[in-house]
């Protein structure tokens, strides 16, 4: 099953490699990993999308907690949560395709953030499935380049992860 694990980690050199190394050393999957500092510059927040049986995911959270730099770990997918991912996608947009492409971006609530004679760069935010759907909806030949940030997540309502 797919799990979204959120981690608060000391903003120390090498913290990311400890976590990434743990996943590879123990054979756990990483679908995506995002990391950036929080409002408290001494800590980073990481979201890892992984998959595995309940036993494996239990071990993942225990092993993460065991790392000295890790302050807190929570499996967001255990309860209501929101997840978002940002995609920047550069598509072919010559005279012929321009209008269609603009309409498509609008349907998916994407924003065109860069324009050239024959390309658009579209910014799109949503959960991973929405981004997948946008890619599917486009003529595959129209896609020049895509870049995705990986999923970030946060608990709904009063569920918070902080020190």
């Amino acid at each position, binding site marked *: 099953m797919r799990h979204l694990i959120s981690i608060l980690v*000391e903003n*120390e*050199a090498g913290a990311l490699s400890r976590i990434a*190394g743990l996943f590879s050393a123990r054979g756990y999957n990483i679908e995506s990993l995002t990391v950036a500092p929080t409002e408290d510059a001494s800590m980073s927040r990481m979201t890892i999308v992984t998959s595995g049986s309940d036993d494996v995911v*239990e*071990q993942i959270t225990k092993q993460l907690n065991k790392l*000295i730099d890790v302050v807190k770990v929570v499996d967001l997918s255990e309860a209501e949560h929101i997840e978002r991912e940002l995609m920047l996608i550069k598509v072919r947009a010559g005279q012929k395709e321009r209008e269609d492409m603009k309409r498509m971006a609008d349907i998916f609530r994407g924003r065109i953030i860069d324009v050239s004679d024959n390309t658009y760069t579209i910014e799109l935010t949503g959960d991973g499935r929405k981004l997948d759907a946008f890619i599917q909806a486009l003529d595959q030949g129209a896609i020049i380049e895509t870049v995705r940030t990986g999923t970030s997540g946060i608990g709904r309502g009063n569920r918070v992860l902080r020190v």
Partner: protein
Amino acid sequence: MDRVKTSALSGAEIVVRCLQEEAVDYVFGYPGGAVLFIYDALFKQDKVKHVLVRHEQGAVHAADGYSRSSQKVGVALVTSGPGVTNAVTGIATAYMDSIPLVVITGQVPTHAIGLDAFQECDTVGITRPIVKHNMLVKDVKDLASAMKKAFHIATTGRPGPVVVDIPKDVTAAVTEFNYPDTIQMRSYNPVRKGHAGQIRKAVQLLSEAERPMIYTGGGVILSDASELLRELVKLTGFPCTNTLMGLGAYPATDRQFLGMPGMHGTYECNNAMQHSDVLLAIGARFDDRVIGNPAHFASNPRKIIHIDIDPSSISKRVKVDVPIVGNIPDVLDELVKLLRAAPKPDISAWWKRIEEWRAKDCLKYDRNSKIIKPQFVLEKLYEVTKGDAFVTSDVGQHQMWAAQFYKFDKPRRWINSGGLGTMGFGLPAAMGVQLVNPGATVACVTGESSIQMCLQELSTCKQYRLPIKIVNLNNKYMGMVRQWQQFFHGNRYSESYMDALPDFVKLAEGYGHRGILVDKPADVEPALREAFANKKELYFLDFITDQTENVYPMIPGGKGNTEMILSEEL
């Protein structure tokens, strides 16, 4: 943070002062370019004594043996690059067995890091998966607190090795020395007390058990809970086993002790593990060498109570019914208190079954052999040392025979690499054991293959006058490899024969020690007596043993605990 203020010191002096503050008496190491300032600071004081090994692997193993036999933290000091890579095996060995070590490694100067400098390696990167924690100290102002953290992390919670990597310029830079008394880390707060509700559940299960079994591992030794364990076992009257890492936690000479579990465990113990209805695991981790095939192990439904300081050890390989995360002495203290008031189950029928299994006498071997049987040497070693020696071992058949035949009645007497299984561990570990237990009897049980892996330390033993007794079971084979090749590879002894062996007696003499070649059963005891009577000199006892002897019982890889191969003697 409470701070002790003193004058400005160089990074190197700070390192040494920190070691003094931690009351470190011995550091095991090997100098080199990146640690020259630290060695200079060591030279200018005499509180911290340095032991010069002959290879960095030996330094870490020696610090490890020092720690295992004393409850203190072991300290090793090595230089950058090859100093570190040589130390890696030692660090991994300590990590697998949760031994508290602080390993100080030199690093190239900060401005040279990442530029492929001479003797540079990414120490933090290389050691990351084999340490409890590691850190690169880039600013001399952080050095004292990093050292404090290292000792704190190494010794608390589930212990383990910590590497502190210090660039050369940091050891030269000067700052005010403030050694914190305590350290607070928001990300690291190991638990102590076990959950009261869970402990009550455990008491309930134990007081209703029909076929209880107590199974304990290295955690009981590491947390110094042997006394409490003895109290628990005596109070309940339950059978008890100690894993390879846990031997000595409960006296092996007591009737309630069933021997070691697992691949080369006893018939009675493996059967009791398998057929128990309530299994109380304490500081043990159900590893593959102990429970065999996990599916087979789980095929007998039993309730499992598991006490461990490390939550990730619980339900890792075997699903546990009552997990209790906590410091073992704290939890056992509670448990014993509650059990005193709880009803005691009648387990006489269970003991009857166990005695039937025990009657099989699974460790039986041919005592009339004309060739020296390795088991015989260990029985004699036990007799001659009156069961009171510190015994280190390497890895292989000799290790298993030592574990089976030397009956350890005290904790911290059996020193071996259980997790990583490091050949070459025994001799350097014995050096650490002897230094921290001066005057004690220290034996290194080894084989002709293992001993050659860290043989250079014979020179260190001479320099520091360590009267270790090396018990070499010489069958001219990597015995355990040969045994597996016999059982599972059609007697094709691929590369397991040890040809061109040195004359070990001359070799020992070459290093300034004594050596005796023993090739007849009748000479075993006299040789041991001569060696152990000599409290001043190292003896290399080269026992020429039966080449075809195997370790029994044996659970083949992938098989269940009751699917043992037994000796042909039975």
